[in-house]
């Protein structure tokens, strides 16, 4: 869906001021259609510039970008995009309803359809009591909800959200997660930039870690079936009963989170670490008790999936995860 090949973006300095600023340097990415990707990284890493390039607001200094095979600006002119900028705002004298209606009309919705779309968007983000108020009188959180509501006016296959949960209270964060789940089910390609790594971990399939304008790492985010948990167990003396007690136990491969590198338990009794799946803590305790009763020696138990925050920290500090 979105392809970036060795993209560079350098901003020229204002006349007589400083040096050119390299916002993105040699960035190559392939975002599949229907994927939900997050873009994370420190301030000034190039997240907003990456979005500006994908939406055709700015042109790359070098390299090539296509969205569904088209140049970004051509794609947006033809299909539009659902876009929430960082620090969303509209003229302060407009009411939320008037602003959303005008944007719905720009989206191409006519008459009754525009009104219905606006009413739905207002209801979805609980803006009814504030719909007739001027934008200037809305709090940061309400304004962010208006910003999210205006993204619902677009049916574009491309959704780009820059810091979408900023200013939202916990209740509306939950609503936002449901919105992202809907976008995923609808097969829309969604990009989310956020500093909230815990939120990113809940929402995205993959995180692109940017630092200093370069892609530092692509971090897959593993999604387990609802209710399942993965643990890493270290056995100094494994026993053959392991395969019965923990069906599907594997030795993790060298490719880290990539399940393709994992090796199934072969009945070996040499010390090793295994990845196992359980329903909950009680299930884990019962199965470990059975394993110990079968004669195994256990030296370590830990959650298998390191939080994204830790992985990002390791990547930025150059440590192994």
């Amino acid at each position, binding site marked *: 869906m979105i392809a970036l090949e060795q993209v560079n973006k350098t901003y020229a300095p204002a006349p007589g001021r400083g040096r050119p600023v390299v916002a993105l340097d040699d960035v190559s990415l392939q975002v599949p259609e229907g994927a939900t990707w997050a873009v994370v990284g420190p301030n000034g890493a190039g997240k907003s510039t990456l979005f500006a390039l994908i939406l055709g607001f700015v*042109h790359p200094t070098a390299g090539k970008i296509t969205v569904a095979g088209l140049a970004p600006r051509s794609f*947006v002119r*033809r299909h539009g995009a659902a876009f929430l900028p960082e620090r969303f705002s509209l003229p302060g004298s407009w009411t939320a309803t008037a602003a959303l209606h005008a944007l719905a009309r720009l989206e191409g919705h006519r008459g009754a359809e525009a009104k219905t779309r606006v009413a739905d968007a207002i209801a979805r983000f609980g803006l009814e009591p504030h719909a007739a108020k001027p934008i200037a009188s809305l709090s940061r959180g309400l304004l962010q909800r208006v910003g999210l509501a205006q993204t619902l006016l677009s049916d574009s296959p491309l959704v780009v959200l820059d810091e979408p949960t900023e200013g939202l209270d916990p209740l509306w964060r939950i609503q936002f997660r449901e919105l992202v789940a809907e976008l995923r089910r609808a097969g829309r390609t969604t990009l989310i930039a956020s500093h909230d790594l815990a939120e990113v971990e809940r929402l995205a399939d993959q995180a692109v870690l940017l630092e200093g304008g370069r892609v530092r790492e692509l971090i897959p985010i593993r999604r387990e079936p609802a209710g399942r948990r993965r643990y890493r167990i270290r056995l100094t003396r494994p026993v053959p009963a392991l395969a019965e007690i923990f069906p599907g136990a594997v030795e993790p491969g060298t490719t880290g989170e990539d399940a393709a590198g994992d090796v199934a338990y072969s009945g070996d009794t040499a010390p090793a670490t295994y990845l196992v799946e359980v329903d909950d803590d009680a299930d884990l305790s019962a199965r470990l008790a059975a394993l110990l009763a079968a004669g195994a020696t256990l030296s370590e138990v830990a959650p298998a999936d390191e939080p994204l925050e830790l992985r990002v920290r390791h990547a930025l500090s150059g440590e192994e995860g």
Partner: protein
Amino acid sequence: MRAALELALLELRARRGRLLALAAFATVFLAAGAAARLLVADGDGHVDADQLFIIGGYPLVSALLLLGWLLGRFPLIATLVLLAGIVSGDRGAGYARIYAVRPTSPLAVYGVRFLVLAATAFVLCAVLLPTFDLLLLGTWAGPATLVLILANILAFGGLVTFLSACTRADAWIALFLAISALVWNALRAAGKLTIPIGVRDFISFLLPPQAALLRLEGAFGTLQPIPWDAFWLVAGYGLVLLAAAAIVLRHREL
């Protein structure tokens, strides 16, 4: 196109403070004209300048002359005030990106906005100038008034829109160019420019067409026939700048 019109009307609403300021400014002209007429109108409804001098001396006559001169600049002032930031305002505030991700063309968005704001400036001037003429002269210059207003709005509206598509501080740069054109044209008419003819003509070509505007203003002031060649020159200047603004809008980064 109706979507762009809806947005343009909202934008006009956002600029209502400027509209009110212009209306208040226009009211000063009308109040001054009405006061002069009450004080020193002759039998034909003209304001008699000699009588005005007897009542108030130089200050009063000078004030009325200044008002008359400013009145001739009102279409320029109204155009700059209403159209300032027509494109750059959205870019600076970040709204341009919110509009740009919609399938409606930015040319439609800003083209219709230009028409709505220019039409508002035209209506404001078309009410003020003839009313002031009627108060002071007992008559008005007829269609020449409307042609003069339209010429100013096209020339300076085109200029400020082009500048706004390229940079910020559009209205201030346009005002600077308008004043520069006024001074340049006066120096040129007085034969005081001692630079090569090619350079002189090139600078005259780049600046707003002040000589043509003065011819239109002269016809308006002396109730002479409209110099259409001057009007088309001014209109052409504005339309070329609007076309250049459209090209910039299509390609410029946001």
